[in-house]
């Protein structure tokens, strides 16, 4: 019950246009750097699209099970065996990396 009310409240809050801060927050989560102009443009466009979805929120679906996938398949597995990769493919895979040293992929420091 309380989750429902909370979500409802949030919805009420944000039935207004997406703020620049919200866009910045989403962009950071999505690992996208945006220019100031882009933030404004996307705020407007995203708000319009989200506004269109208001209709969906009006329907009471609390008793309906969600569908994550349509095949009905469950627990499709295969044996956890290592399949060796051939030398040629290994070379190509490493060669695809934009920055590398020998057969190592180079990135900026993960921990400062």
């Amino acid at each position, binding site marked *: 019950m309380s989750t429902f009310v909370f979500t409802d409240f949030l919805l009420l809050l944000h039935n207004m246009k997406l703020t620049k801060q919200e866009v910045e927050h*989403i962009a950071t989560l999505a*690992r996208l*750097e945006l220019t100031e102009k882009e933030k404004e443009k996307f705020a407007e466009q995203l708000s319009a699209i989200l506004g269109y979805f208001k209709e969906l929120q009006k329907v009471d679906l609390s008793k309906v099970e969600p*569908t*994550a996938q349509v095949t009905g398949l469950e627990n499709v597995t295969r044996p956890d065996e290592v399949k060796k990769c051939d030398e040629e493919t290994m070379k190509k895979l490493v060669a695809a990396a934009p920055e590398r040293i020998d057969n190592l992929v180079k990135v900026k420091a993960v921990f400062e």
Partner: protein
Amino acid sequence: MELNKLTIKEAHNGLVAKKFTSVELTEACLAEIKKLNKKLNVFITVTEYEALEQAKEVDKKIAAGAEIGILEGVPMAIKDNILVKDIRCTSGSKILENYIATYDATVVEKLRIAGAVILGKTNLDEFAMGASTETSHFGPTKNPHDLKRVPGGSSGGSAAAVAANMCIYALGSDTGGSVRQPASFCGVVGMKPTYGAVSRYGLMAMASSLDQIGPIAKTVEDAEIVFDVIRGKDEMDSTTVERVNKKENKQISIKGLKVGLPKEYFIGGMDDEVEKCVLDVVEKFRKAGAEIIDVSLPHAEYTLATYYIIVPAEVSANMARYDGVRYGYKTKKAKTLLDTYLKTRAEGFGDEVKRRIMLGTYALSAGYYDAYYLQAQRMRTLIRQDFLKVFKEVDCLVMPTSPTTAFKIGERIDDPLTMYLSDVFTVSANVAGLPAISVPVGEANKLPVGVQIMAPWFGEEKLFEISKLI
């Protein structure tokens, strides 16, 4: 004889009868590509050398008297989001501009075994996001019927390639109509299989619970031939399903066939002339003895919203891999690892991709997940149930593929919402996982119109048989 204008069946029969060689067939297509590609911007990569080598191999076989398969030696094109080993695969994006595929998609493997000749990779909306092929980093593709208009999208390159006879058939991918809608705009056949019928291994993922690879061809018969080759359970794609029904080879009679017209798909918002073309087909069915039944899909009005929440959500997860680390474009301006991500993706992705990533991130974020994503998944259940009910009453559904014919280049690109509305008739098949096909049925204002047929899950045989009656 203009060999590039042949269908698969005609090409195959000609090869078997030794009327021409696979090399001649391939050269005819390559010549057409050379003639038209600059104007139409269909192919991102043309694999002339490889194609001719493949054709020569087939010709050797034929010369030695060996039997050849139906697709053997027949030149085709592949949408540039499907991996072909050692060939550049860009997905229409700057972020993969120079990426070389390191393996074949399963469908490509199957086509190679079937002896297909691969002419090249066709243009698409960036990462298959769009309905016009205008979001491609490599520029828009033009509709062969009218160069000022879009070919549709996202498989616009593949549809235009077939329509312009630059190849005999092509592969596209369909997440919300991306095979059917461009087929309709370009006057060719485009089919989306039941979700799970064709392997997605090697298809760059857009929305993993909706994506399917489908054939684009000149005839329904040709589309069926290609589908039969690319279908099948695949160990590399855990969402594929073993063929359920045995191929019955039964002739479907139109008499007594129950054809459903979903009333929610025939209300306003459609071009009058487009509607007329579709109703003419219905009339044709009726005169031939089919029973036309009005049916209802009560949750139809929520389908587009459901689609545009689920898809961006899945997109946001699938696009996370493009980070400038293991492959693709990498920014030169990064000072930290976070910078690498932020700037690589900012510089490498186009606007539509960014929009959908953000929409999806938003819909999945804390506080909004229940209201958007979970709600959409629940609605998805109801939409599926609508179809389950309806297919108890009818054998198939008929409706337009698109509410309009091909619109002008530049007309909708600045208004994302209007662009999304062009998918209104096609998305339900993806949301429910149903097989659907678009078949050309004449013109409206001198532009092609497609009619869409939908069949029950794994009802492809029925789908093709009914489509052949159009």
